């Protein structure tokens, strides 16, 4: 009897090994098709000069897998993608899916509900201190074409209340494999921004909302 029990336990463990599956979502930033390395210089045809990115961090929320119009939540509600650390999300999911949905940014309720830990801990550098609210998207860098202080550009995008509510929905059709690469083509973003005019956003504003919408619109699955 005991022998039968151990065989059953062994088979069930083996079964879970066979059926459990890890799905990986890897986020990358690109410049003209090349994977961006922070601190490395790239050439901008728009600026006719060099551009480099020193910091890129953003939150995604409410990640779901979509299959046949059905959505299933995946992983933590809020995930910080920090390009100085890790931008890969490993999910224990055996669900077959044809698309993913997520929101770029942190919802209003979380923004007004006090202190949280983990990815939302204010020590990760994504919370304003002089006013309340998460910085949903942070992109910093420099370009020799800029005449601003230290030739730097800084975009800290956030805002949780009308009219500066700064959350954008992203829906992507995915590849049929367990690893999908989600690409943020920064060259496309910088085609929409005249850096000589707009090189700093540091508080909630309509410009921040507009830029977040642009970012959400250019995020794509790498083919």
């Amino acid at each position, binding site marked *: 009897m005991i022998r039968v029990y151990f065989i059953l336990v062994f088979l069930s463990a083996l079964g879970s090994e066979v059926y459990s599956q890890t799905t990986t979502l890897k986020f990358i930033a690109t410049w003209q098709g090349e994977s961006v390395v922070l601190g490395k210089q790239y050439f901008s045809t728009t600026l006719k000069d060099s551009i480099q990115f020193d910091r890129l961090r953003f939150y995604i929320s409410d990640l779901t897998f979509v299959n046949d119009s059905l959505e299933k939540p995946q992983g933590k509600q809020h995930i910080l993608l920090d390009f100085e650390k890790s931008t890969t999300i490993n999910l224990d999911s055996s669900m077959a899916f044809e698309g993913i949905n997520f929101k770029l940014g942190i919802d209003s309720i979380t*923004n*007004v*509900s*006090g*202190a*949280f*830990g983990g990815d*939302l*801990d*204010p*020590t990760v*550098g994504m*919370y304003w*201190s*002089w*006013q*309340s*609210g998460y910085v949903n998207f942070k992109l910093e860098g420099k370009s020799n074409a800029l005449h601003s202080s230290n030739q730097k550009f800084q975009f800290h995008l956030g805002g949780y209340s009308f009219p500066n509510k700064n959350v954008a929905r992203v829906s992507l059709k995915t590849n049929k494999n367990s690893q999908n690469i989600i690409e943020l083509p920064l060259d496309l973003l910088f085609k929409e921004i005249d850096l000589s005019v707009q090189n700093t956003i540091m*508080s909630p*504003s309509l410009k921040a909302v507009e830029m977040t919408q642009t970012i959400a619109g250019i995020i794509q699955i790498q083919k």
Partner: protein
Amino acid sequence: MKLKFTAFLIILSALFAFQKIEYQVDQFPDYFPAPLYNFSNNPMDTNKVNLGRFLFYDGILSKDNSISCSACHSPFSAFGHNDHQLSHGIHDSIGNRNAPPLFNLAWQPNFMWDGAVNHLDMQALAPISSETEMGSNIADVVKRLQDDPFYRKRFYRAFQDSTVTGERLLKALSQFQLTLISANSKYDQEKKGQVEFTKEELKGYKIFQKNCNSCHQEPLFSTYEMKQNFIALDSNLRDYGQGAITKNATDSLLFKVPSLRNLEFSYPYMHDGRYYELEEILQHYTSKTVQEKFKANGLQKINLSAKDQTDLIAFLQTLNDKEFVFDRQHRFPRELLVKWKEE
């Protein structure tokens, strides 16, 4: 026998150490509204309150260990900074606002004179990061606390884990500040039927209800809304209040209505600390210039004779809560002196 008594004392002190504070039930009068702070996200606990109290009084939150929260929020000033017009900070810097007194924070919907902070838990981030207050940042503070055996031990007591995080630090600070409840002034005692107002105080109460209660609503003596106080812009400070945060012209010069409790201990008054005497404030609100501005903004005129003003001040003095101001539970914790001596 002696051994039994010692064991009894140890058990008693252990029980006391783990005693939960029944904050929501016992600590405020029934005529107070329901608190706005969501205690279910940060349940009150004696060890967390104690940790928050150490953090509140320790300069470790500032870059050079020189400025604690209590530097500008002293218990004897109802956790404000009496006799100081503007807040003081690191390297003898001077801020651009008067440090507001701290009490009854669980009932406040927003924090700071400009209402820029939406939750008590997140308020400490502002002074910690301010160049003219503590000159640090939350990540550095967490590292300093993690490197300090005194605090590792107290974080363990509070959270059953010695790991210091931003969330834990902020929630512990909130817990101590949530215990700062002012609800035993003469006004409160009268409400509870324990004492009676004098004739002057009663007259002053009626004058208050007619002229002041719409903004300084009892029993908290503030609606905590953002309002114009119609004082002229200080040309040096150039503080536009909420307008500077929202960038809306309609929010320009709006400041949070302060509570009128504990005025005796928390002078000077207004967001820039320009008035040292209550008489000056009454003169301001009854002046011809302000009355015209009230009229232009559809507000009710305030007419107060000299006698009315005296009676009103008599009533305002009933809002001073000495028991709160001199409460030993809120004072500097002596264990910090031992810690500092050992360092």
